[in-house]
């Protein structure tokens, strides 16, 4: 019972954080005889342990799933940053705009299939990205800082446009029919679609790796990342490469946006929520390195999920601190090449 002093004030002091330790209520303890107490507390511990296992397992699978989504988001960013040396602050905008576009295509009025919508959205954003690069960024060739600021200004424009067109309500499409439902394993229940996202991420990673390591285009990109001026000397049309890579980055972001929409939904402010995560992943993993983006994504997926669960107050600090440390101690990131 709550203890109240004579003049009506409360005597209990508020407790701090809801703790995960069991607080069996005093009355239950007092009433049960000795044996039952021992058994009930033992089985309580077992339930405790199992539920904690379930929690960790679910969080771990969640982290991997989120990491997959982050990779899709960050791969494009990494390429752009690596090749063009500009952190594209519009990347979140492409993610959000692509997601809105894809969701619109999935409306009953248009009725496109989920995958068709995702690809169509990617193509649309590629065109827009190419346009932005060719018409605006190229005017500022060589002035990296100005280019960064330009992408920042464009992100303001895009976010307001999205609000104008799609209003303030969140849009959340259902996952494609064949991927709905849950998976039950190891005592946990997990949405099938999130696991599918991991598979998609790995597939895209493989495709990108093939592109970068095994094709001529990829070789040109790698040359540009390593040393753009010399690449020009050798005859590689680096400016055209820039446009291509920017478009590719935008397409990847849009694809990620549509794929992520059933999980995250699409809402105003999504760009501002996702851009910092892409930033962290790429800085951590190393600009221009796809392996770095992959490793970084899963790392951040874990930090994000476990951080939110264990240290909700410091959730963002936990995310940005590694980025900061990497920037200060090893600016090229875990797998990056050379200094920025």
């Amino acid at each position: 019972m709550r203890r109240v002093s004579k003049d009506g004030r409360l005597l209990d002091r508020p407790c701090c954080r809801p703790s995960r330790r069991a607080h069996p209520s005093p009355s239950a303890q007092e009433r049960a005889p000795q044996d039952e107490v021992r058994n009930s507390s033992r089985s309580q511990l077992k339930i405790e342990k199992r539920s904690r296992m379930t929690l960790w397992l679910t969080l771990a699978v969640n982290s991997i799933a989120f990491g997959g989504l982050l990779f899709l988001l960050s791969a494009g960013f990494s390429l752009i940053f690596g090749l063009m040396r500009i952190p594209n602050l519009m990347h979140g905008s492409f993610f959000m705009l692509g997601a809105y576009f894809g969701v619109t295509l999935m409306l009953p009025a248009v009725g496109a299939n989920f995958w068709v919508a995702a690809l169509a959205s990617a193509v649309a954003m590629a065109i827009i990205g190419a346009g932005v690069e060719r018409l605006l960024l190229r005017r500022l060739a060589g002035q990296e800082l100005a280019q960064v600021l330009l992408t920042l200004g464009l992100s303001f424009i895009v976010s307001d446009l999205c609000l104008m067109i799609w209003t303030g309500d969140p849009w959340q499409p259902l996952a494609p029919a064949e991927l709905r439902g849950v998976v039950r394993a190891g005592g946990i229940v997990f949405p099938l679609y999130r696991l599918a996202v991991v598979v998609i991420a790995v597939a895209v990673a493989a495709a990108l790796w093939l592109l970068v390591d095994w094709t001529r285009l990829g070789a040109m990109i790698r040359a540009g990342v390593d040393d753009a001026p010399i690449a020009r000397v050798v005859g590689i049309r680096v400016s055209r490469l820039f446009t291509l890579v920017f478009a590719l980055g935008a397409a990847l972001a849009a694809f990620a946006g549509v794929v992520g929409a059933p999980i995250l939904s699409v809402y105003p402010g999504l760009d501002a929520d996702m851009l910092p995560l892409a930033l962290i992943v790429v800085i951590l993993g190393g600009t221009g390195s796809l392996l770095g983006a992959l490793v970084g994504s899963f790392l951040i997926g874990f930090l994000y999920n476990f951080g939110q669960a264990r240290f909700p107050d410091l959730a963002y600090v936990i995310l940005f601190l590694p980025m900061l440390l990497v920037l200060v101690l090893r600016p090229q990131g875990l797998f990056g090449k050379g200094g920025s």
Partner: protein
Amino acid sequence: MKFDRRRFIEAAGAGLSASALPSLVRAQSGPIRLGLMTVKTGPLASGGIDMERALVQYLKERNYTMGGRKVDLFVGDSGGVPAQARTKIQELVERDKIHVMIGPLDTASALAADDYIRQAQLLTLSVAAAEDMTQRKPNPWFTRGTSTSSQSAQPLADYCYKTLKHQRMVTIADDIAYGHEMCAGFQRVFEDSGGKIVQKLFSPLTVPDYGTYIAQLKTNVDGIFLGFAGSNGFRYFRQFNEYGLKGKVNVVGGMTAFDEAVLRNMGDEALGIITTCWYSAEIENAINKKFAANFRVDWNYDPGFYAAATYVEAAVLEATLNAIKGNIEDKQAFMKAVRGIKVDTARGPVSFDRYGNVVGSVYIRKVERKEGRLVNRVIHTYPNVSQFWTYEEKEFLANPVYARDYPPARYLE
């Protein structure tokens, strides 16, 4: 891009007359300048736009006349940023010279503008739920016709324990004052009735992924109470279902978790959810039938919390104006009248306690399908609910304000 010509002309006229020195005493036959402080951009925009639509509907029905005088409406947009809300309220008061304000929408904006409202002696009919503004730090110019954060949650807790026979529950809400206060009220009544809240979760207001919070959820409970605002209830519930939890744990919602505005975007998965609110589009009284029907004709969806809020506040405003014979310049008389008024509104009969907070009916609703669309059907009514529930006013106020950790949660596992 919208260029609001009407606003421009009005404001230009107001600006010109405002710069005339000395300021003229307004004749009683001049129009009443009504300000609406809402949110039209940003995540809270859908509720804010509803607020404007319902208020305009009310004014149109009465030909923009209340208490025998014309009414001029000025709309301010805070973008959901509390500091900007405060500046916009300042703009409405100092530049547009409003007599009375309906709004603001969100609790944080009300708290940010609290001292300005006192300083400017701005008559305020609030939509926002900030509790202490009508409790321990009562603002003499502030009145609220909707609900405090916990006013609608407390009856739901009673319903959960007594009717639904839930013994163990979990609460989850946005990590803002509104969410804290709502869960605290729910917890207090639920535990005082005999139940146990075994887990309290708070998620940030904008979080892309609720996966972490669903992972931490204890599933060996009877029900989960959702104290979300805006469309977070909808987003959380979607993910909740994806993890296969629907049917395992009963879902009950607070007054903004499954509002009519988000319900229209949901499907059959929402059927059967029980929520509480001081309003439902399905309330059977003459005023509401007309209001909801007309709103539906105009905008093609049912009015919810936000639309009803301004419609009810406008009714309160009109009744008060009638009581003081339209003399809104007499602020003291206005505040005295509003605290003594009894009005029949779309939400049913309302009156006000001595702190300016409403005393009215709270409805327990269930989501059902009617005429092909999802509605919140009223399954139970708690009449004459005050912000103190069944607790004695002095004892209630002697306790600290409802917060994240007050009342202390004793049964957490």
